[in-house]
């Protein structure tokens, strides 16, 4: 965004685009668990190992992390005024989200390897 005269526009757009994907994925998963819950570990693992399922699940986690980052950052910027504490909390949340991202990548990919 040239000169960033409208700062926050990227976060605003990111929040809404990821929201749409998250809503669709979660609605689909709730539907799946209501109407056709996986009966056994094998069925669940085989379902998750399908390329389109693992890929959309990874996209779900990616979207969730960005969505959470924008949301939690907004809340921290609103309520935490001391600069040091704000920086520490933002860093902790950022690192925590990145760790969750790496972990979910590992979990989803390992379902494909077994």
């Amino acid at each position, binding site marked *: *965004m*040239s000169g960033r*005269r*409208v700062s926050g*526009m*990227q976060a605003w*757009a990111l929040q*809404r685009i990821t*929201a749409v994907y998250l*809503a669709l994925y*979660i609605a689909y998963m*709730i539907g799946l*668990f*209501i109407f056709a819950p996986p009966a*056994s*570990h*094998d069925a*669940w*693992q085989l379902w*998750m190992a399908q390329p389109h399922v693992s890929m959309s699940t990874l996209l779900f986690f990616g979207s*969730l992390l960005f969505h*959470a980052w924008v*949301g*939690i950052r907004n*809340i921290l910027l*609103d*309520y935490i005024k001391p600069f040091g504490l704000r920086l520490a909390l933002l860093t902790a949340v950022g690192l925590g989200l990145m760790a*969750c991202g790496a*972990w*979910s990548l590992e*979990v989803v990919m*390992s*379902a494909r390897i*077994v």
Partner: protein
Amino acid sequence: MRLLSNNEMHRLSIEHENFLRMMKTKQRPIHLDLRRIRMPVNAITSIGHRISGVLIFLLMPAGIFLLDLSLMGPDGFATVVAVFNSFLGKAVLLLLMWAFVHHLLAGLRCISIDIDLGVEKPFFLKTAQAVLFAALPVAFLLWVAL
């Protein structure tokens, strides 16, 4: 990512400057002290949006842990099924369902206000009320169906 034309950005920055000038001249109290802010229904829906978001954020590691366990093997899968059938598991799932449904409905309301739908006063408060009170039964029904 470029979402606005130069003209649109210029118009927005003028609006922003006008807003800042208005805030300065009117000497409004600027604070976010939740105990001193009057809370009409839209404010309660909005704070619920934040609380539900934080709740989902906090439950995320537990969710990834359970997904990991369920995919590890038949034993792990059985453990996860047992967790969801336990009292605590069911209670947390009900809370999570409320958080998801409230967050989703409040988010949809937010997007509709972005595109100038439902900004006028009676409707604005009605939709806030609808989100606040619809989230509970919808979440409960989903929880029962699961």
